[in-house]
């Protein structure tokens, strides 16, 4: 495998993010947003074909569906998974690994997409509401994609509203089961982190070429741990870039990171 002559940082992140699903087995790989979705698709097309994916609507497909405009009936459904059975079939039985982009993430891996600032009764900035985050986080594997690593996202204290469960011992309820809480990767524009630190602390495991640990720490509201050996994020291969290009014919990935910076060779 040869590395390609040119690639964007976003493409490099997509390749790094696709590793989240490696060896997951048969579960629904959901990437919310263009980069996570391309990452999940890349995982299925390359290293983990047993992953299940939807067409973005009600059907399961074996060939990941490209992003953006195409014929409405270009889907080739192999199975059926409408919203109307998503909790019954995917979320509650724990057969899913979703990669999402929360507005806030704290040191426990708790996230927030509900509101920022103010109170539950009168938020300063209302966002979506908790959506499926409480259920996703207590039932199945989750990862995160953060296009702009900053202290606004990685907050100093707890997130303003805990929309998803993390590893905060103060939030554990006596007698309840939190066994299925399973946070995997956080892929950002600076680094790749996991939850392999002390007591599931967030830990830097890869740095993108040219990025230092201190730079990541500086952009993070809480103390990060470092893996024993921090790797440098690999460059995409030509094959990976070709697959990404095929799955994103309208180049929506160019809009994910501000100014669509170039990636760097390792």
């Amino acid at each position: 495998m040869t590395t390609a002559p040119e690639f964007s940082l976003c493409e490099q992140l997509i390749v790094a993010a696709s590793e989240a699903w490696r060896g997951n087995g048969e579960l629904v790989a959901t990437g919310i947003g263009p980069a996570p979705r391309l990452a999940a698709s890349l995982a299925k097309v390359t290293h983990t074909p047993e992953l299940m994916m939807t067409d973005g609507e009600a059907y399961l497909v074996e060939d990941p569906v490209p992003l953006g405009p195409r014929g409405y009936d270009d889907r080739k459904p192999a199975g059926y998974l409408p919203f109307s059975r998503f909790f019954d079939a995917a979320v509650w039985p724990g057969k899913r690994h979703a990669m999402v982009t929360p507005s806030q993430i704290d040191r426990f891996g708790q996230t927030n997409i509900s509101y920022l600032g103010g109170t539950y009764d009168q938020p300063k900035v209302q966002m979506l509401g908790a959506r499926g985050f409480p259920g996703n986080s207590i039932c199945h594997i989750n990862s995160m994609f953060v296009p702009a690593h900053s202290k606004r996202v990685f907050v100093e204290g707890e997130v303003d509203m805990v929309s998803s469960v993390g590893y905060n011992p103060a939030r554990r309820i006596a007698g309840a089961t939190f066994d299925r809480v399973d946070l995997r990767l956080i892929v950002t524009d600076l680094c790749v982190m996991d939850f392999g630190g002390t007591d599931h602390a967030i830990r830097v495991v890869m740095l993108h070429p040219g990025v230092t640990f201190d730079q990541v720490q500086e952009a993070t509201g809480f103390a990060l741990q470092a893996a024993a050996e921090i790797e440098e994020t690999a460059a995409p291969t030509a094959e990976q870039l070709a697959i990404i290009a095929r799955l994103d014919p309208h180049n929506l990935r160019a809009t994910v990171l501000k100014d669509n910076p170039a990636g760097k060779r390792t």
Partner: protein
Amino acid sequence: MNKQLTVEQFVASLKSGMTIGIGGWGPRRKPMALVRAILRSDLTDLTIVAYGGPEVGMLCAAGKVKKLIFGFVSMDAIPLEPYFRKAREAGTLDILELDEGMLQWGLKAAAFRLPFLPTHVGLGTDVMTHGGFRTVQSPYDDGEVVLAMPPLRLDAALLHVHRADKLGNIQALGPDTYYDEWFARAADQSFVSAEEVVDRMDHSYPEDARANIVERCFIHGVVEAPLGAHPTSMPPSYGWDMKHLKAYAASARQEGGWDAYVAGVIGADEAGYLDRVGGKDTVAALPLPIF
């Protein structure tokens, strides 16, 4: 037994203070003709239960909503519903924020007349703390503690489907009907708007009987409303009107924007609505969204 109602008769059968569940999902399959009838009415102090889309924003903007029970409010390609957002940030709404799965679980608890249904969902989150949910312990040896989701009993449910007959038999086509049937089963009364109303479903469309997602004993009123989901989508018949939704969203940033939307779009009655938004043919031809 003839359940067919005019949209005026429908709205006259609701009362201020009711808890009303609205089917669909975000900007998909919303019973917008029925919602517009509420917007034009004197109804107030409603509790709305929904996987919310533009209907929630509109009802908030019109001051109809006392309390909102929701898993999210979003228009998908327009992630944040601007009028919902305004109402939230003004602090004028009572709310109960749920996980999406909890919402349907609460509807099922209501349908089954159960005092609660247990779930892991919500444990460890602020959905639980803010929502005042209680826990319950398994009476078996595991002794596991789980969250008790109380029933979301509705006074009325509103749905939009493809076909209905005068007896209340309905057919909802399309690949996904979300939790529409559970809104109906959780409600004392359900009102359905339909693209087409026929006399007898078994005479007109017997071959599509499996599209009967909820039984007619749960359907109390049927309103004919062709293209009645506009500006939301109605697969496989027509897509959402993103241009319209963008203009609607933009109105929230304009001085007097909501009043202008009411005057220019919602209007005095449903009869002229389709003309005001571009005409029947244009709406019918809206392409289905692609994900």
